[in-house]
């Protein structure tokens, strides 16, 4: 990729499609992805909305529409506020833990050349393990009787990691971080390496220390990367299902029962497909709301970046 010339002034005006022919070719190009996505993304979404107005039990061959019954059941379900709260908690905490640590690791790896390759290979392995495998491993390691604590002989590690509400959430966040920090630090590593050294040199001439350099150069330069990485983290956290399911199955009690888990339990375990679909719609709305919010942050950033270019 070294042949790519450095960009000159980037045109602000959109690349106009030249004439009808070119435009229709472009439409053909977008069509396969559009059709696939509409078919398996948008149509199911409409299906979820329709199912949320039924009381299907998942077994009967016919599906009858029964108005708002399922919505009432879902919205008055005591579990809903808890599920929303747990979802939010997982989202916020996993972002708060992962972002600074990923930036720290990414910054370090970008500057450290000697062990970078070595560290990068090992850091990346967690991302390669399935959530189910990770959950099984941690379940065994955290067993209060046969796990890590027993192995090291450290009584403090023999906690009821998955059996107490706060500990279970903390454990979940830790496992999520274990799984995803490597990926995000890789993103940050790439971004940090693109910050021109001349900026640091200038700062050094001005007598700025490392910490100040980090806050006045590195962090501002990483702004767009932070938005991208945060989008992936926040939107991704809505879809944590596998990990929670195998690790705690939503327990203890309902301490880790996020919306996705709640939906699954209602629909596939309690045979209440209607309320489960209603929760699914709520989940989608939360997701769309979040992505719009993040897009506004990102959109404004894009604009200003373009103005500056």
């Amino acid at each position: 990729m070294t042949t790519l010339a450095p960009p000159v002034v980037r045109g602000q005006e959109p690349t106009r499609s030249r004439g009808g022919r070119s435009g229709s070719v472009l439409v053909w190009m977008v069509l396969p992805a559009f059709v696939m996505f509409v078919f398996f993304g948008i149509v199911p979404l409409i299906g979820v909305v329709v199912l949320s107005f039924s009381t299907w039990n998942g077994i009967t061959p016919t599906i009858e529409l029964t108005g708002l019954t399922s919505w009432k059941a879902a919205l008055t379900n005591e579990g809903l506020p808890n599920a929303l709260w747990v979802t939010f908690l997982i989202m916020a905490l996993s972002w708060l833990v992962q972002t600074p640590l990923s930036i720290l690791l990414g910054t370090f790896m970008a500057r450290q050349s000697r062990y970078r390759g070595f560290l990068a290979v090992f850091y990346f392995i967690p991302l390669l393990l399935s959530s189910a495998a990770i959950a099984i491993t941690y379940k065994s390691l955290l067993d209060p009787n046969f796990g890590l604590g027993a192995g090291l002989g450290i009584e403090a590690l023999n906690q009821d990691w998955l059996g107490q509400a706060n500990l279970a959430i903390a454990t979940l966040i830790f496992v999520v971080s274990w799984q995803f920090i490597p990926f995000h630090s890789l993103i940050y590593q790439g971004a940090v390496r693109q910050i021109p050294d001349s900026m640091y040199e200038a700062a050094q001439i001005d007598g700025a220390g490392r910490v100040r350099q980090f806050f006045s150069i590195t962090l501002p330069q990483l702004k767009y990367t932070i938005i991208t990485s945060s989008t992936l983290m926040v939107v991704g956290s809505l879809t944590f299902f596998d990990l929670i399911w195998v690790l705690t199955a939503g327990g203890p009690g309902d301490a880790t029962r996020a919306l996705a888990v709640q939906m699954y339990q209602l629909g596939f375990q309690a045979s209440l497909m209607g309320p489960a679909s209603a929760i699914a719609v709520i989940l989608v709305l939360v997701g769309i709301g979040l992505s719009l919010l993040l897009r506004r942050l990102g959109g404004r950033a894009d604009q200003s970046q373009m103005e500056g270019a």
Partner: protein
Amino acid sequence: MKRRNFLTLTTGAAAGAALAACGNDGPAGSESGGGGGSASYWSLSGEPGEPYRKAAIDRFNKANPDSKITPTFFQNDAYKQKIKTALGANQAPTLIWGWGGGGLKSYVEAGQVEDLTSFFGDAALKSKLLPGSFGAATVDGKIYAMPVETVQPIVFYYNKKVFEQVGVSAPQTYGDILDLIPKFNAKGIAPFSLAGQSRWTNMMWLEFMLDRNAGSEVFDNVFAGKAGAWSDPAVLDMLTKVQDLVKMNAFQKGFASTAADTNADQALLYTGKAAMMVHGSWSYGIQKANGGKFVADGGLGWMNFPPIDGGKGDPTNTVGNPGQYLSISSKATAADKETAKKFFSTTLVDDEEKAGWVKSGGVPVLANSDSLYTGEDAQFQKDMSAIAAGAKTFAQSWDQALSPTASEVLLDNIAKLFQLQVSPQQWVDNMNGVIGK
């Protein structure tokens, strides 16, 4: 009808995009080779049951070269999920393995399983099975499943070596248990092992505590759908006692982190880290296989759950699985149904079937098995058989007896009860809310 349009639309469009199906072996097995039917059969994988299930099918296929039964085995949790989705997708196997009770009832209501009442009109066939096993196969007076495999009462296990070491003897009453708890705790041994993450393990405690406290009527009323059936004062008393157990550290530290599927709960008992455990009779085989010489050396003790002082329940009562159940899919072809029925009336009631389940360490649902208990597990099997036969009431496990909807709420509330997240009163209110659902 909107729904139908939407599906027709999507199906039409999908057909164009669909690739040639590879590996699409329809589990319904409607396309059969040979003259007879070709029934598909789904059941649970793993020891100790799978080899004997396989053996029965091999025997049948050998004896009936014209027809063929094809088995598929699933892990327990996966199976529950699969069978439900398969029924919804009209992809059910010919032979549906199950636990009877509420799950079977939901299949019946959806018209998914065959009515076998007239099939069991044959008294000679019916008499080959333990009469108590038909309760959970019956919905509204009609039989929809054949009881198979083993009777599995839930048992009170204890580690004799640990009892010796601490210098105490096996409890005779619930009061004795309460006395034992601080003694074991003082020695750093967990009084009871409990796989608290797997909710149904906690449920076994409630089942016995309620029965010994209040008798079997309370749950009968719940099962019958009587409004407010959980409001019996004996229920509140029982729930309070359970929470007291949790508060006095009757269960191992971090019990809510222990899951039954890794069998870590049973490891606690045979490694001597816990002194007692309430678990299904199948646990005997697991402890024998994994506990080294623990069972062979007489380390494992067992009995029926002891009576509660002042309780109304009959101390002979027990809870558990009165059998496993096989139903025939109503969607299967006539030939396949015939094959399935032949399998029921011949292979599943033959002497080899009986001997096989005895050999597995279990108590068969087939009648007149007592003379077969001669192996190294004879004492355990005789005791289990006696518990099953001597029980005034052999109740089915609650989560199996109730509908999937009610049972999910039940398990959820039980988990919260052990977490001390709900009070006994809240528990009663929550459970009254789903009676008859």
